[in-house]
Every structure is written in C-alpha cells, then in structure tokens.
C-alpha cells in the first residue's frame, strides 16, 4: 500500500486547513472502511487527518427537544445514548441493525454517513468502475448486481449507499453541521448524497475539504412511533438487501404525518416522498400503505438480478406501517 503521513489536528480549523493544503488527503474516523480500501488500493491518500481526537464526541439535547450528535460519536455510544433511545429510537434501531459490535465500537457518526459503497466491482481494482476510476465503465451494470440499485441509477453507476444510519437520518430530516475553508454551513442529510448521474465519483455535495462536525436531529412529536426493518442475507453482520425506516402519526384513523425512507435501493438513502404524500391525510389501511409503496416504486428500474427488491421494499413498507398503526393508541 501507498506510504502515507498521519496527523492529529488539535481543532476543527486545523483539520480543515491540513486537508485543504493537500490534494490527496483524507479524514480518518474509525477507519472501518477507509483502512480496508487503502489496503485494497481503492483509496490511496498520502495524508490521513485523524479527526477522532477533536472535541466532537458528545450527544447533546437541544432546547427545542432536538439532538445534536457530534461527528466522532461512536456508533455504539450513539445507539446506547439514553436521549437517543428516548427521543429518537429510530437512530438506535438503524445503528444496531448494522455491522457488528466491534465495528460499531470503532465507527463514527460522520464516518458512517461517508462510508463508500460495498459494490464488489468498486472494491476490486482489477475490475471496471466509473466511481473508482472515471471513464473505465460500470462492470456491475451487466454483472453481479443483485445487491445494487433499483432507483436513481445511471448507466455510469448502479451502486447503493450501504449505511443504515443515513436512512434513519434522512427520514428524520436531520441536518449536517459542516465546516469548510469558507466557514461553517449546514446541509440537510437528504442533500448530502447524490444520485450517480454522469459523475459517480462525486458521491456527496460536500464542498472540497469540508468536515462534518455534527448531525442535528430536529424534534419530531411522533419520533417514538418508529421502526427500522432490514432484510439481510444472514441474521446479523450483513448489509441490507433492502431496508425501510418509518415513523407514523395518526389522528384517529387518519394519517396526520409520516416519514418513510428506503435503504439499499439507490446511490443515496432514499426518502420516499411520493409514498408519504400518498399517505398523508388519508384513512390508514394496509391497502393504502401498499398503494403508497407502489407510488414510490413506480419509478423503480430493476437491474437483471434485483427485480425482487421492488416486492421486498413494498412488503417491508406495508409491514412497517401496519405495525406502527396497530401500535399507536387510537
């Protein structure tokens, strides 16, 4: 592997300055993905800026009832945090559905959001991948693509984003606090990841050199009426084949509000706005939930090996929402 330098900045400004000064630098969080990719030669930074020593490791309850999660809070700590479990259990559920205990002990909040696709072609430098090497083609498009996208893909890339946490954060309208050479700014998590288009190598809308410093989760009155359902190929320690994050608010039988997001279906966590729209203001039934899922999935374009994901996501949507509807006190 390429020899690299390693630095531990004292504060956010120094971290951003270090990265900005070096064209091939990368931030290092828990390293659970980046270090693997470095060994494989997929990523070859010559400077690692370790941000885990920065004072970004607390979870704070905000005056409005929301949460502010520091970028370097470890996944295990976030999942176990009493305020998270009480006010935003969807985050705990999504986190605990992912990876293994050891990995969650290492992985950070921001690192989780910025992890790379597990598309096998991306991870193998012997195979064509526009994301890894722009212009080489997408071997997955006509290769082994069972685990890959059904929504929002392009001929350039059919990868999916692997995070469970990101799906929950998108459902909850979370906002990133970001620091870059131009100063501080905010970006909704839903706008962090891109669809691949013609530039799958550009995965996020973060400005160059930007460092995520925190994730803010706004209060949601019905946040506790939530679920995260994840279908996977073994009982644990597997990326989603398909996942659904849902929260539901009923007024009697009528859907007052709903949050719905899908994982493992696209290059970014997929907020199901069309399905939400089809649900809001209508009397809840299982049939309505199915029609809502159909409305969202009408845009799906399955690849040769993953047509089943449409039925899978539809079934998970119905199960998630009917379960929440049954659990909500009328």
């Amino acid at each position, binding site marked *: 592997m390429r020899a690299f330098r390693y630095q531990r900045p004292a504060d956010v400004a120094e971290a951003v300055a270090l990265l900005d000064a070096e064209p091939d630098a990368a931030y290092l969080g828990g390293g659970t993905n980046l270090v693997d990719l470095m060994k494989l030669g997929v990523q070859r930074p010559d400077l690692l800026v370790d941000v885990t020593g920065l004072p970004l490791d607390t979870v704070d309850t905000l005056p409005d009832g929301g949460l502010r999660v520091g970028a370097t809070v470890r996944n295990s700590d976030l999942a176990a945090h009493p305020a998270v479990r009480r006010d935003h259990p969807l985050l705990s559920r999504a986190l605990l559905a992912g990876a293994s205990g050891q990995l969650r002990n290492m992985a950070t909040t921001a690192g989780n959001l910025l992890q790379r696709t*597990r598309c*096998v072609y991306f991870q193998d430098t012997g195979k064509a991948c526009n994301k890894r090497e722009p212009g080489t083609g997408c071997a997955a498009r006509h290769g082994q693509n069972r685990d890959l996208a059904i929504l929002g893909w392009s001929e350039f890339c059919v990868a999916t984003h692997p995070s469970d946490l990101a799906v929950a954060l998108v459902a909850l309208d979370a906002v990133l606090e970001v620091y870059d050479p131009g100063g501080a700014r905010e970006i909704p998590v839903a706008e962090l990841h891109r669809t691949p288009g013609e530039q799958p190598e550009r995965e996020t809308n973060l400005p160059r050199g930007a460092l995520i410093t925190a994730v803010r989760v706004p209060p949601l009155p019905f946040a506790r009426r939530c679920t995260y359902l994840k*279908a996977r190929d073994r009982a*644990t320690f597997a990326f989603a084949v398909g996942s659904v994050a849902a929260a539901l608010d009923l007024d009697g039988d009528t859907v007052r509000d709903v949050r719905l997001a899908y994982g493992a279906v696209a290059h970014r966590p997929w907020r199901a706005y069309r399905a939400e729209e089809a649900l809001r203001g209508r009397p809840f039934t299982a049939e309505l939930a199915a029609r809502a899922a159909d409305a969202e999935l009408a845009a799906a374009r399955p690849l040769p090996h993953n047509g*089943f994901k449409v039925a*899978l996501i539809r079934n998970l949507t119905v199960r998630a929402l009917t379960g929440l509807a049954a659990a909500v006190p009328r």
Partner: protein
Amino acid sequence: MSAPPVGAVGREHPRLEGRDKVTGAARYAVEYPVDDVTYGWAVPAMATRGRITRIDAAPALAVPGVLAVLHHGNAPRLTPGVDQTLFLLQEPTVHYRGEFVAVVVADTIEAAREGARLVRIDYDAEPHSTVLTEHHPDLYRPDTVNPGYPPDTADGDFDAGYAAAEVRVDATYRTPAYHNNPMEPHATTAHWRDGRLLAHDSTQGSTPVQATLAQLFGLPPEAVRVIAEHVGGGFGSKGAPKAPVVLAALAARHVDRPVRLALTRQQLFGPIGYRTPTIQRVRLGADADGRIEAVCHDAISQTSTVHEFAEQTAVYTRSMYAGRHRRTTHRLVRLDVPTPFWMRAPGECPGAYALESALDELATACGVDPVELRVRNDVTVDPDSGQPFSSRNLVACLREGARRFGWADRDPTPGARHDGRWLIGTGVAGSSYPARARAAAAAATAAPDGTFEVRINATDIGTGARTALWQVAADALAVPADRVTIRVGDSDLPAAGVAGGSMGTASWSWAVIRACEQLRQRLRDGVVPAEGLTVEVSTADEIRGQRPLARYAYGAHFAQVRVDADTGEVRLDRMLGMFAAGRVVNPTTARSQLIGGMTMGLSMALHEEGLLDERYGDWVNHDLATYHVSVCADVERIEAYWLPEEDPELNPAGVKGIGEIGIVGSAAAVANAVHHATGVRVRDLPIRLDKLLEHLPAR
C-alpha cells in the same frame, strides 16, 4: 482387542494449547520471530487465459524497500511433473484469473504490497470458458473420481426399474462454488540455510509438504523441515501443499533471506481451491410405501486445465440406501478456472444434499414420513461393494434424533404453520462418511523420572487432535495423563498423514497406541536407562491387513426454520444432529467438531455462494463481507449428540472420525425444512430470500 483402562479417553478436556491460543502465545506460520526476515507478496494474473508477453518490474523495484520481483523469467527452477498446481513462476502460461504469476519481496509488508500493485504485466489473452453448465460441449467422463473410485457404477437395470416404479422423483439440484475461509490464511515463513529448507507452514500435514518441497527443489527429504505446530483451520484447503509455501521458498532462495508470505483474504477465493459447483440430477423410483426400487445420481462438476480434480459427488448414493436398480455417473469439464480442491466432506457433502433432498421429495410424493422413509430404505450390506458393514447405526440415529427433536407430532403438510408473519417448518436428512485410516509412525519415550513423551507428526488444525492423542497415549501407557507430553506438527517427528478425510484421530491414535503398548511391554523387562527408553512403530502392515468391510460413520440431522413471509428471509430456530461415530475420545472437542460441521452445512444451505462473473472469470464476492458465512446469531440453538457405539473392526481406539460427518446432510435438512415451512422447493443453493420471495404471497 481389550477395552482401554478407565482413564483419560472419553473424558471432557479443554484443548492443551487453548490458553496459549487465547493469550496469543501460540505461534502461527508467519508469527515466528526470524532474524533478517523479508516479506513476500503474491501477484495474481489479471488475464483469464493466455500468456504473459512482458513483465516490467522496474516500477515495483523503484519502491523503497522492495528487494526483488520474481516471475517465470528469473525465479529458481522447480522440478516439473510433481504437482502442476505448484509449478509456479516457471512458465508464462496463464490458466485462470488470479493465478500467481509473480512475487514481490521487500523489507516491509507494505512495500511488498505496493510493489505488487506496480508490477506491469502484459498478456496475450485468449478466449475463456469459466461457467459450468450441463450442456457444456467439453463434458467428459474421468477415469476415476477422488480418491480412486470408478466414475460410473451400475447394478440391475435402472431404466426398467425406474419406468416400472409406482412413484417417481426426477429432480436436478445445483450447488455453487464454496470457498474455504479458515481464520488463518494459507501462509508460510521459509528460510534456507546451508542448502536446507526450513518452512513454518499453515498446513494440514507437514509430512506431505516436506516430501513435495523436496521433490520440487530437488533435495533429499531430510534437507527439508516443515513445522506446523498451530494451524488456524483448513477444512481441507490445506490438505496438500499450496502456493504460499512454494512461493516463499522460491523467494527466500532468490533473495537469500527468510521470507514470510501470507495470502490475503481475497486471494483465498480461487488459488487455494474451492468446492466445485455441481449440477446433480437424482431420480428415484419407489413403490407406494416409499421403498426405493431404482436410484440414479448423475453428477456434473468442474476441474481446471492445470490438474484434474474429480469430486466424488455421487459416491454417497452408492452405499447409503436400498434399491435393486442403481446407477451413478460423474462428468467433468475442464474450465479456465482455479483447480477445485477439498472442502469438508468433498463429494459426500454436495452429494448428500442432492440425495437427501430427493428423499424428502419422495417422502412427500408417497405420503410417507421422511424419517420412516429412510428407515424403510435401510440396508444390511453395502449395496455398492456387497460387503457387510463393520457397524451401521443410521436407523438408531434417525430414531433417537427424532425422539430428542420432538419429531413425532409433525404435521407433514407444507406451508401450514405460522407464527405471525413467520412460516415454520422442520426437516430431516441422513448422513454418512467413510471411517478410514491410513498408515502412520509414532514414537514413545519413557524417561527415568516416570514421565513419557509421545511424538507423531499429526497436525492439530484447531480440532483438538493434540489433546485427543494425549488422552489416548495416557490410557495406552496406563499412567495419569499429567505424566505424558505429546509433540505434533513437525516433519522431524515420525511421519504421519494429513488431518483430512476424517481419519486423523483414527490413523494417528493407532500408531500412538501401538508405540505406547510396545513401550509398556519393554518397560516390564527392566528399568529405564538414564537416556530414556524409546520405541518407534509404524502401522503400515497392520492397516494393510484390515478385513474388507464397509466402514462408515452415520448420522441424522433435524432442523427447524422460520421463513419471513414478507421478505423470504430464512432463519434457523434449531438444529439437532445425532451421530454414531464409534468411540468419542474427548466430548468437548468432539461436540465442537460436530456442531461446526452442522453450522457449515447451514451456511451452505442459506448463505455461502461464490458469484462468478463470466466476463472476468473469477468470483467477485471475495471477502467475508460479501461472501456470507453463518455467524453466531444464525445458530442460536444447535445440538449434537452421539450414540454409544463399540465397533471392534475399526482401529485400536475404536474411533470413526468426526471431522466431516457433521456437514454431510445438514444442508439438506435445512432445505427440507424450508420446503416444509413454505411449500417452495428451492433446488439451487443457497436458499436466498429472493428465491423464496417470488413464490410467497404478496402483501
């Protein structure tokens, strides 16, 4: 044979080296401290078939710390004709993608890896064929299948018997490529000193590694020493010398310094072998009560262009159940792929998946309980050889396993049990594995202080073999076990065969017991001299003189699964294995072997699958994140039991071997349970959620 004295054998005992392993004190192949050591990194071919036309090592050599780039143009010469899979860095030919075509040697492992990335290799690529199909134009009948069986057998008139049968099953089952993933990869530290080669190798048997290295490098065997004191798993894939030991030895000779070379996880997917994909057609003809009249098992598998490896997939069917009219066939095709190799119960494991699944289909077709169906088709002599069995307790395993599992109340109707959105089902399968032994030598030494040392080049690949042999030795010497020391895992010790074929303990304990018995006899004649008293024995003559009998271990697997009606996800509720495998030396490690095999069968049924990309000709999911192996959460409740079995026709310890019987049939039990749960018969493993989802009712 007299029963051994009451002593160590049969008692639970933790592994002797367990503490060293969990504290990190146990050393594995590339962990030995070595002065002036260097690191080797294997470079895989990026062509699928063809020839190397040019190698440019300059960019690699420019990396600081890189010492050498070995390839066919500059590597030391090996003796041809020894083992073509080990004839490495000798020719420009590329037989498959991922074949090792160069080695970079450097002062650090990072520099070696970076150098490997930078070696520029040009190929003259040729068209390739990498996909096994039943219609492949190059299918052929091998002369023999492993380890020497005839490829085809026939008895009676299958076609007529099948045509006349009241009930017929005709089903084709498919298994994908499965990849062995021991925790410790294949790895070697090699040193040359004064023309002698010392290798610390991760292998299932250092005696054959020593012999092969001697032949490859043109040395007398005594000039080669191979040590494998601790081995982090093998499952068959380390049952013969593999590329790392040859590459490390070549590299160490070239740079004249010790070389450590370990394969990466990704490199385990191919060059070290894998379980061949299979396509198996099974036909069963039976009467209305499920008594089999005709059975035919046609198996197709693949080999490489390097070496013929003919998996004995249909051999299981030759001896397992009744049927007057019998036929088995094996066909192979040479593809541009790595050579398949042993993976836990090669042949028996995939073959039993197919036959035990077909029996389940027959039970359904006849309306006969699948346990009862197997009992009805028990045999008293081996249908293949006509020989009597040394012992055969299949029916007892089925009956006792059914009792412990709670099978009696089972409703045979598929798709009839629900727990919310879960569909529940149970399944059963039979199991058998040959109980063989091979010749070995062992030495035993008595010291004047009343202690003993027993030496044999057995290999403990994590199974507990070292501990079992220590227990056997203590009883054979009729002394407390704490007075006995056992030494294994070094080719300087008396020669013994590999840990494979479930014959390690049977073979090694035989030699150990004979050595200990002779030593006891000698000790009766007088006192131990100051330098100690040593005897060394070989069991070659005794094993050659064994009576011709059919010797097998038997078992029965029971599984309960639940299938999520919304997602098609299959989860195991419970698995129970009942075995008859002769005497059990150490219940602690025996249970681990059995539930390990059962788990591997579960993994085969539900999780593992090498996904080949035909365009590249290799498996794209080559790591443990994308090639799923069952994890602890998949096997929350798994039980293994054994019947007391005394079989005087085996070996002095009375053992049958337990390394493989646990996997044989277990995938079928799971697959049969999935059918019982859902009514869906998935005949191509693994049973992934998408294969079920399309048959389950939509929301």
